[in-house]
């Protein structure tokens, strides 16, 4: 499933899908961004089929940001820039923040109990509290306890925090210290 903002990037996306190669594929495989300043330059050696498929349209910069949280991978955000040129640090920071927010939105939007009657928008701003190692350890524990995916486990933790008016790291710490076991079933019940 893809969404494109205009025809230019749509063609680049099509070519990546058709040829099975490109910055987006590499970003997902590697688990980190792939930042290409100019498609027409060096990458000819990395993605020959893609460049061949794009032909004269192989222009501009392409920055691919995986939408991920550790091993949770839900897609990739491709930002195409024309004409090609280096990015300012601020632009990169913003793009990474946006990728983070999209990842959170996509994860949470699959959890209807959070979306119903709740300010979903307010929950997706990046939160320092939500990113300590205890949160990720708790995700793994809940995954193993309930036999669900890592993405679902993360959403359950957030759902529990939201429903009980606790911070995510409080919930995570309680899980890791085995003071809290999340119930099976479709998410937090108040």
């Amino acid at each position, binding site marked *: 499933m893809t969404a494109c903002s205009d025809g230019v990037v749509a063609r680049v996306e099509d070519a990546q899908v058709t040829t099975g190669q490109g910055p987006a594929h590499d970003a997902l495989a590697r688990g*980190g961004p792939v930042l290409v300043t100019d498609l027409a330059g060096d990458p000819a050696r990395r993605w020959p089929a893609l460049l061949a498929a794009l032909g004269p349209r192989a222009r501009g910069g392409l920055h691919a940001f995986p939408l*991920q949280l550790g*091993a949770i991978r839900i897609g990739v955000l491709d930002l195409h820039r024309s004409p090609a040129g280096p990015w300012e640090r601020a632009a990169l920071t913003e793009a990474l923040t946006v990728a983070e927010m999209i990842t959170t939105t996509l994860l949470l939007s699959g959890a209807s109990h959070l979306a119903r009657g709740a300010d979903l928008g307010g929950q997706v701003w990046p939160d320092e509290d939500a*990113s300590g190692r205890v949160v990720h*350890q708790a995700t*793994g524990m*809940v995954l193993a306890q309930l036999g669900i995916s*890592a993405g679902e486990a993360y959403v359950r933790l957030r759902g529990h925090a939201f429903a009980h008016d606790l911070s995510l790291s409080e919930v995570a710490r309680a899980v*890791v210290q085995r003071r809290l076991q999340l119930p099976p079933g479709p998410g937090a019940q108040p």
Partner: protein
Amino acid sequence: MTEPREARLVEAFVRAADTLVADYDVVALLQQLVEDCVALLPVDSAALLLGDHRGTLRLVASTSEDVRLLEVFQLEVDEGPCLDAFTTGRQIAVPDLVDATSWPAFSTRAQQAGYRSVHALPMRLRDQVIGAFGLFDTASGRLEPADLTVAQALADVATIGVLHQRVVTTSESLNEQLQTALNTRIIIEQAKGVLAERGGIDVEEAFRRLRTHARRHGLLLTEVARGVVQGTVPSEDVLG
């Protein structure tokens, strides 16, 4: 430097060099380097933090999972010598926390955890600082210049390890490597949780089993961790 320390130092660098020329796992390398710090220097604990895209320090490797100690390291994110080393690019020595007037919250918590001295070293590449090393000791005192040289060298190796090549040609590749390393750490934390739950063990032991399994089978730590989280690597195999 005494002869035995010199030999161990050479060994540490050879091990790091061997790792860097092969297909290596960044987080495994960083974990090895903080452990080398504690083995080679008169310090009790070491931590390595990397700055993310918002300039916030994130703990990526530490010699102990002890929650109290982790909280000390974590406080470094908001205030502390490591944060100062990161923002200024300079080494910061705190021979006695009792006398330190900067970082009141950090100083209090560090002393409560039993530490008296801290040395923070920047992880830098040319004019960019990507993170910091924190060396903690229960005794007060300043590290000798020779020790600081060793510590900075280990920090430099860590920087190279994160950035994947001796000469990073563009800021793009620097940012790519940094973000990848930070996400890799998350995968490992998730895997620790899975193994801790399935094995009925604590996360520190879970990490040990993960590293042992990867080493024993010649696999990248990150690949094993990802497999454990995604279910493609059976936890029982790793737990042993």
